[in-house]
């Protein structure tokens, strides 16, 4: 790689990192503002505890009065977040960072395996439908994806609870139909290009046409789709983990929402947003790089 190209590459990378940092700041600001102005903010049920002395109750009230200034609140929130302190969960009385550290691997495992399974199924069905099978296969795969699209993700989760199947399979079933439609349309569009038609007319085999002509054309969009599929999978993780009783981030967000544990739910949203935006940025960046190469 020449030095000019290296500098251009570094600039683009720096721009992406700056966008992510900006998003993190914006997300933190929005989260802090929403928590600060939500109904019930500043009301502490500990004040009703008869075991607490008037001095303790006054100390709690004083703490809330200190938090009433938005800019002070935001400043403290941001400086604490920079040190990895995302506050304490009101309902679980544990640091948010600790909870996320504990539960993130569970969700990451389910999402990763779910996305890989969904991609394998969607890609395999789209390719088989495109290259080898007739309309019966096409109609049945469309019906399957259409039926899965018509089911709420919570119902799919319930079905997998009853089947005692792993959580990642439920995530895969929610992600698969959306991916399948995109992948099939992308491949079909690439397959209909004039140069592919010319290759077919010359008698080149379907596998070679697919690998040498169709895949390079569809690759940038397919890579960009990886980022989108991670977003879809994280979204699906909430109902699936909640209903399948899987101790991940999704279940944590759900219990936090039911308990109106706003610091926890807002921090989780900001963290998940950063992860999905980072994945989308990497996928988008890779897609552009592939498009330039091809």
């Amino acid at each position, binding site marked *: 790689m020449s030095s000019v190209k290296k500098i251009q590459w570094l600039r683009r990378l720096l721009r992406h990192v700056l966008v992510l940092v900006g*998003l993190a700041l914006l997300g933190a600001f929005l989260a802090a503002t*929403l928590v600060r102005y*939500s*109904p*019930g903010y500043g009301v502490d049920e500990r004040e009703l505890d008869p075991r607490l002395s008037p001095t303790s109750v006054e100390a709690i009230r004083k703490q809330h009065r200190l938090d009433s200034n938005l800019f002070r609140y935001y400043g403290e929130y941001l400086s604490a977040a920079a040190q990895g302190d995302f506050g304490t969960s009101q309902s679980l009385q544990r640091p948010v960072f600790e909870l996320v550290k504990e539960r993130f691997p569970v969700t990451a495992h389910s999402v990763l395996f779910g996305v890989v399974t969904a991609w394998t199924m969607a890609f395999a069905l789209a390719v088989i439908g495109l290259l080898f099978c007739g309309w019966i296969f096409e109609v049945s795969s469309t019906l399957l994806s*259409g*039926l899965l*699209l*018509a*089911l*709420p*993700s*919570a*119902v799919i989760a*319930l079905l997998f*609870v*009853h089947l005692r199947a792993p959580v990642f399979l439920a995530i895969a079933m929610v992600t698969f139909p959306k991916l399948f439609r995109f992948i099939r349309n992308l491949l079909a569009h690439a397959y209909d290009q004039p140069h592919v038609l010319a290759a077919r007319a010359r008698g080149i085999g379907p596998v070679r046409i697919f690998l040498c002509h169709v895949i390079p054309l569809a690759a940038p969009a397919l890579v960009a789709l990886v*980022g*989108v599929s991670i*977003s*879809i999978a*994280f*979204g*699906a*993780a*909430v*109902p699936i983990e*909640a*209903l399948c009783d899987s101790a991940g981030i999704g279940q944590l*967000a*759900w219990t*936090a*929402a*039911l308990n*109106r*544990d*706003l610091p926890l*739910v*807002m921090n*989780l*949203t900001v963290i*998940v*947003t950063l992860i*999905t*935006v980072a994945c*989308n940025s990497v996928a988008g960046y890779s897609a552009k790089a592939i498009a330039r190469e091809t």
Partner: protein
Amino acid sequence: MSAKRRLRLIAVCVLSAISVLAVGAGIVTPYPYALQFRDLPNAAPTTMHPLGTDALGRDLLSRLLYGTRVSLLLAPAAALLSTLIAGVLGGAAGLLGGWYERFILAVTDLSMALPLLFVLIALRAMLPLDVAPLASVVATFLLLGLLGWPSSLRVVWAAARSIRNSDFLLLARASGCGRMRMILRQVLPNLRAVLLAQFWVSIPVFILTEATLSMLGVGVMEPMPSWGNLLRGLEDFSAVSANPWRIAPLLVLILVVICFQFILPSQEDLA
């Protein structure tokens, strides 16, 4: 008539029939949705209760019809709101261009990267959970409408951008056509098909999202019925195996969403 058109016609007929039944729920079924028959919990279908009753002894048919009314009336309303937002912002971004376009697209890309359910749950958690059932319905669908626009905006923006560079708009501008007149007479008629398609696409998405939210207990609150609330009955699998008619809400939901998939305008219709 082609098979596609025939399927679409059937889907429209089915949807119309379900909508009529839902709107006329008060006439079709004699019971209010919250009325309890305490001596008849989990009753099997009878002539009095054609779909039986739920665990609290409420008539399942009444709840299904009133729930269908809630979902079928408010999902299009939320879709209308999100399409309006997408139309205004996407149209402006496509037509104006420059920094305005970049800013709107950056916000849209960010919104598209967010897992919608996480954001919905976070925002719903900000509201008190013990709100009145009617307020919970309005809050749920309002949030859906306010947050569901990003993917539609991308499509509207692409269409508006192609119009910006079109010859007829250049001609209109050259002949001194005013901005408002140009938007109303030249741009909007050309965006109509795209906006209509986005409206239809959003409806099943919102129906399914409401169902998931309500199943998780952060959507429409009891005793107000919605498809999501009714689907919570499926959580007790042994009760569903003993009373298979409890699956009726799921079947109606699947039927409605599939009908919406069939009536979506095709590429040829949009062209």
